[in-house]
């Protein structure tokens, strides 16, 4: 009996159950200061003036940082650095951080933040991705099209596929903005160590990427930045973009004191990405025997004000739009679109979680029209080893789909032998 396939006790289990595990929020250093971000209340506005005088008079407030205090590059992002660390002239969503207070206590930091006066000139906001796609729509980012990404997937001839169909189902499906709702809200501590290197303890998904982003914002070499992830209380994709990493870095480097930020649940909702809401128009055809003949799908994902992973998420949506089924004729178009909504990014399933609402609802609708069981229509079209996906990829190995169907069906009390045309012997 080897180690593979066993269920040994997790090394971190005892510490997490007893509360001994160290999360970033548990970390304290002598002389540590606390940060508080000031976020835009508007989805789109010009920043006219930031008055920090009253904040700096609050006892305990050490600094108020704005865009001009960033020593390196004022931009962050996993694909393009289109999100400012601190907004300079314009805010593009209510997430945007316009200023950052450093103070000796969390209360002083909050008080200082409350006294910062930002004058905005509100601008029209694009809040609907379909409107944002129209020719002539104002651009969210002047240097980029609102349609950040479009992937067409083309296979066969959908016109012929629908002509060969005995039944065609058309529906539009919509998914929602979702929060990752991880247990541990964002927390990070930064300090300069005895070498003068910056060390950041942060709940993150990728320490090496955080190092790249922090070094770029500081204008430092990467060897002088160290990122450590202590215990992390869930992530689900919501810790892939910079939230506090670059902010605590700025505070620690500016004040030369250890700096900490821990978000409340309420601010956590504002700080990290959301799941892309998608509008999915689906048209699916099948023969009366239940074989799929064609799929036409258009998927629009709202990226919000910043790109994060949007092209990759919508690519994943397009590539998975058929579901795990052989469809000979396919026309899929997926779009990622900038708006002035809160930005969206990675979340468990990453663009492959939304299309199943559409493709699996379509399968049941087709089955209902054809008078066949939901299991049967899936069985007739399911990927098997050697099958080819809509992108032309041959599934060469480990295609366990039909086995999952059989096991699930039996556990649900269904009899696959009766639901498979011709019975099990065909397999």
């Amino acid at each position: 009996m080897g180690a593979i396939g066993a269920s040994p006790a997790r090394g971190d289990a005892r510490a997490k159950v007893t509360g001994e595990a160290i999360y970033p929020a548990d970390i304290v250093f002598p002389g540590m200061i606390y940060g508080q971000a000031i976020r835009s209340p508007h989805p789109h506005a010009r920043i006219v003036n930031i008055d920090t005088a009253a904040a700096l008079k609050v006892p305990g407030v050490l600094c108020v940082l704005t865009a001009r205090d960033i020593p390196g590059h004022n931009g962050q992002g996993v694909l393009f650095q289109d999100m400012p660390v601190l907004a300079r002239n314009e805010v593009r969503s209510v997430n945007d951080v316009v200023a950052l207070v450093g103070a000796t206590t969390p209360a002083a930091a909050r008080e200082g933040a409350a006294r910062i006066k930002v004058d905005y000139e509100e601008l029209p906001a694009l809040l609907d991705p379909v409107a944002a796609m129209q020719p002539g729509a104002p651009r969210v980012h002047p240097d980029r099209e609102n349609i950040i990404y479009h992937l067409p997937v083309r296979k066969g001839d959908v016109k012929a596929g629908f002509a060969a169909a005995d039944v065609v189902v058309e529906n539009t499906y919509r998914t929602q903005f979702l929060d990752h709702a991880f247990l541990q809200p964002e927390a990070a501590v930064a300090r300069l160590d005895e070498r003068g290197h910056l060390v950041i303890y942060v709940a993150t998904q990728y320490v090496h990427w955080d190092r790249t982003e922090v070094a770029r914002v500081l204008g430092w070499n990467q060897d002088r930045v160290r990122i450590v992830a202590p215990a992390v209380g869930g992530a689900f994709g919501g810790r892939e973009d910079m939230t506090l990493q670059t902010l605590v870095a700025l505070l620690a480097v500016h004040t030369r004191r250890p700096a900490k930020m821990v978000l409340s649940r309420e601010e956590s909702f504002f700080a990290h990405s959301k799941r892309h809401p998608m509008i999915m128009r689906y048209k699916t055809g099948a023969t009366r025997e239940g074989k799929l003949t064609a799929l036409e799908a258009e998927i629009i994902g709202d990226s919000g004000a910043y790109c994060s992973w949007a092209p990759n998420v919508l690519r994943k949506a397009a590539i998975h739009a058929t579901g795990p089924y052989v469809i000979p004729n396919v026309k899929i178009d997926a779009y990622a679109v900038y708006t002035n909504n809160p930005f969206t990014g990675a979340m468990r399933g990453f663009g492959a979680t939304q299309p199943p609402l559409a493709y699996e609802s379509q399968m049941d609708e087709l089955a209902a029209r054809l008078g066949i069981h939901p299991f049967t229509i899936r069985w007739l079209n399911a990927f098997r080893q050697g099958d080819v996906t809509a992108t032309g990829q041959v599934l060469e190995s480990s295609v366990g789909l039909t086995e999952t169907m059989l096991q699930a069906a039996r556990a649900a009390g269904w009899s696959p032998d009766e639901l498979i045309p011709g019975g099990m012997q065909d397999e």
Partner: protein
Amino acid sequence: MSKKRGTGMACCFYGTGYGNGFPDVSTANVEIHDDGSATVHTGAVDCGQGSNTILAQIAAEELGIPYNWVTVVSADTDTTPDAGTTAATRQTYASGNAVQMACRQARETLFEYTRSLLGVNTIAGLVAREGVIYVKGYPEKYITYPEAAARARLAGCRLVGQGTFVTHTTAVDRETGQGAPYWPYAFGTQIAEVEVDTETGEVRVLKLVAAHDVGRAVNRQGVEGQIAGGIGQGVGMALMEKVHLKQGRIINNSFSTYLIPTTLDMPEVQPLIVESYEPTGPYGAKGVGEPATIPTVPAIINAIYDAIGVRITELPATPEKILAALRAKEGEKQ
């Protein structure tokens, strides 16, 4: 009787990894110590999903030592090599492969030294299991791992290994979408049983059967935990969760207004592990992190349809939407 039950099925496939030719790379280091224990260094962050445990199991298996002889040091840019992000259901596959490669290298260095001690003409003639190295086909001839490691190190051998694994994918064509964008693909089927109250519109999810093809389950309890957690998030997405915006501003930024499932909302979960064995994975493993949540929403939506004959096309399926759909259906009849 205002409560109606229904059953719904949903299948999924999921291309794991970054995909599309993106550099999807993981590096791991390992060192075997004088006493036969070992330390693995990996940049992979364990976000709670259990990668440190999985990687320790893979190291233990590949080195041939007990699981509790392995320590995994992770997620520190000063001391651990880049393992890529903890996302895309990729750490078991990509970092698991990197750890296995690193451990194989370290073990083969140890075997090369041990070979002469046991009078074997090739390292292929040695097997290590549970802290003992013995001659293949002749287990009576053996040496303990601690003794072999201590003697090898005293002889100047350094029992270290480094593995770098790159997940193979290709970019899709930008005009046609054709290509081989992900590898490997995971598969799953879930069947939901729900009860819909036609007077209140409330949906209770009673049971979810969840069969997932994970290639090979490195840690069975870990897989079952991922399936249960995935279903929990799926129940939230299907029935209750939504970030509400008013002029671009989030208005329900707390758990009193952004509802997530509690233990009382969780259905009975029956996880079923299907092992199809992926030849490019560590011991045949693929992954399950994301696929576990993917079929839950449509399984529930299809179960609602089965129960009351209404098709919810916009998430979440709140009681208000269920009642409105029921009223619309009644209206059609009249």
